């Protein structure tokens, strides 16, 4: 088992290095620079700025400088937010997105699984149709429509929730729901179809015929066998949700990390582009690793490593 983990960790580092290098090269290939704008900066001021951020060096040198500081886990200064470093930007904004994401994820997984299970057990009945109606709605209504609608009715017209900004727990309810809508719908549909399939299997019939109480059939045999597809998507889904949503964070004015994925590119904020990309990749790679380990625990058929001994 240790050997497997060490091998995986080594692969993870290589993957990250490849991602860092490719991102660096692609980012430098985009035309434009961080300082081109409406304001007329004299050449000399531009030169000072370029040398301050080492942008006047040839690209291979810039790459080496970046890699050197990356090894020390220093992601460098942001160019757009002149007085902040990429490390502080990530460490300040990620916890906010993570809190919101965790709430949304719990809401999505708990409600999604519940709806999926109920829909499958009441296959082709009213509850099933109802759950599927909401699932289709959740998948097809984009968040930039859902969020302003919720804002308009739940916050402005009926004054149940605050409109926007981030000043306390109650401010996180609307964005959590808006953020949860899509994964919730996805999980519901996936769980339902997977469960409908498992319910027709022979071992379920066996379990029923040997006289197990229905709730045990559902919990011990059906759910455990049908949850595997959910585990597969839950890794990337978690990372995606935890790292925030540009749209939701913008609409509800949440100081999360989501906007940096988009804005850093349009601002040509090179260190920030690298920083958030690498942060996201490491998170994704790590969570996928955890998911692989979880497979082994849930499904005995999957063997990640030969049992030690002989």
């Amino acid at each position, binding site marked *: 088992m240790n050997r497997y983990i060490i091998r995986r960790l080594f692969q993870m580092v290589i993957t990250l290095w490849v991602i860092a290098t490719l991102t660096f090269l692609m980012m430098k290939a*985009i*035309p*434009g*620079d961080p*300082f*081109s*704008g*409406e*304001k*007329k*900066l*004299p*050449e*000399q*001021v*531009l*030169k*000072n*700025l370029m*040398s*301050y951020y080492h942008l006047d060096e040839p690209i291979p040198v810039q790459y080496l400088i970046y890699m050197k500081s990356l090894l020390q886990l220093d992601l460098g200064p942001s160019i*757009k*937010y*002149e*007085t*902040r470093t990429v490390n*502080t930007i990530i460490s*300040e*904004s990620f916890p906010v997105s993570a809190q919101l994401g965790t709430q949304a994820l719990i809401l999505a997984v*708990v*409600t999604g699984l*519940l709806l999926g299970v*109920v829909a499958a057990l009441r296959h082709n009945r009213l509850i099933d149709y109802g759950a599927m109606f909401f699932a289709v709605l959740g998948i097809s209504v984009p968040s930039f429509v859902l969020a*302003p609608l919720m*804002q*308009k009715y739940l*916050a*402005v017209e009926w*004054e*149940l*929730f*605050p*409109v*926007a*900004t*981030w*000043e*306390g*727990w*109650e401010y996180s*309810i609307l964005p959590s729901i808006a953020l949860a809508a899509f994964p919730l719908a996805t999980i519901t549909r996936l769980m339902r179809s997977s469960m409908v399939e498992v319910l027709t299997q022979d071992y379920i019939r066996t379990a029923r015929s040997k006289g197990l109480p229905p709730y045990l059939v559902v919990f011990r045999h059906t759910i455990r066998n049908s949850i595997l597809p959910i585990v597969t998507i839950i890794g990337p889904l978690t990372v995606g949700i935890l790292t925030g949503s540009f749209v939701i964070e*913008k*609409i*509800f*004015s949440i*100081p*999360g990390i989501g*906007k940096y994925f988009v804005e850093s590119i*349009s*601002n040509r904020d090179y260190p920030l582009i690298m920083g958030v990309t690498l942060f996201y990749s490491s998170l994704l790679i790590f969570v996928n690793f955890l998911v692989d380990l979880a497979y082994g625990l849930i499904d005995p058929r999957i063997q990640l490593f030969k049992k030690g001994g002989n």
Partner: protein
Amino acid sequence: MKKYWIFSLALLIVLITGLTGCTTGADKSKGGEKVLNLNLSGEPSSLDPAKAFDEDSLDVTNNLFEGLMRLDQNHQPKPAVAKEVKVSPDGLTYTFMLNKTKWSNGEELTAHDFEFAWKRVLDPKTAAEPAFLLYFIKGAEEFNTGKGSADQVGVKALDDYTLEVKLARPTPSFLQLTSYPVYFPVYKKGAEKNPNLYNEADTYISNGAFKMAEWKHDDHVKLVKNEHYHKNQTVKLSAIHFSMVTDSKTVYQLFKTKKLDVVGKKSIPPDLLPTMIKNGEVKLREGNGLAFFRFNVKKEPFTNAKIRKAFALAIDRKLIAEQVVGSGEQPAYAYVAPSAPNNFRKKGGDLIKDAQFEEAKKLLAEGMKEEGWTTLPPVTLLYSNSTEQSKKIVEAVQEMYRKHLGVEVSLQAKETKVYFADQRNKNYVMTTSSFLADYNDAYNYLESFQTDHSMNRTNWSNKKYDELLQKAANSGNQEERDQHLHEAEKILFDEMPVFPLYYYSSGAAEQEGITGIIRHPVGPSDYTSADKQ
């Protein structure tokens, strides 16, 4: 069934906690507390007075600090930290006598803090974008470009309360400039120990009407009244809360629910703006700068001045300003905006007539004949795809050329930074452009089109124009200076490497009971004397 019970119970708990939570809210004015709730369009890029250069950063810093001068309601510089100013007859030496004032930590503010601050801005290691606004000072440009040293910069604290400034050339707008954030003093004792003291709230020391209380990045900045401010009895607000909401629809909802006291015209959704202007919710005022078009005079067909003129005259500016943009902009018939001081625009008058379709057609034919063209070389119009509005404008312009010149112009949209890079590398035929003045002076508008100026971007070069600008820069006499500038502006319109479209307008919507906010066509807003009922 049991499961449903648990589920509905959970939902109920979420709802109840949500509802009870709603009673707490943003900063409200309670018990005599007067908090002005404002919005920034996002995290300010820097609140260090040396580096603040975008509108949001400038707005916040301007209310945290006070410079030698401060602009009054009529946009005139009035003594602030300075008690009085003596200007030498040649206009090259300014001596500022300072009031005895204090920093927000209670320590004395001296002329040394100013000297330190200005040299800090100019130090190439600081890499301050607005450093060039100090180039009027002797030795400043040299130090900033690495050709001189800090000692050669013409600013010196003669004693604790006397600051002497030597200029490189007479600059009538110098006093106005000393009211801008880049000229603010810096707490020398703190900055020598920690050069990044203006990066976080707990080390932030300032000298203005307000001091820094909270700065949660990406979330809000809160300023509270500074008890050490030398005129603190005139300050009526107890605090200013700047939130950082980027989405314009959300900003609008927050304003409607009275969570925001003031919203600027720029942060109102464009589709709602015309109505809000019409019903008086948004009050307009003269703005800074203008929207215009650039021709690349080294690319055909705009190598020919008559063809450039034809393209300039075939535009109906009034129609574009009123119908296409429709948010209070004024059609522009010259380059320097009406908000420029000393009635520059009134004296200069209009330099181009609107919608001269017949004249345009004639000029186009003449120009083509001069060049020996039977068909016009293809014209592409470069624009930035950042806003819906810029697309509407270029489409209107395309239609006008089709209708009035019979010319088919192709449109080319590019992502903002690529668009600016193309502009700077002169990789275009014709392009939309925008100018915002850094300080309110006709010179600042017109200096752009000197040969090889970083704002020129048209390949246009005219010796007479360069000469006139040089003369204006070196003239200490306002009349004479303006005369040179008027002449230069005329040359610009005779040759037409650029043509104007509309002057920007500014505006804001305020809740009832907000008074005393001072705004200027150029430069940040001032909340020092603002009040909230």
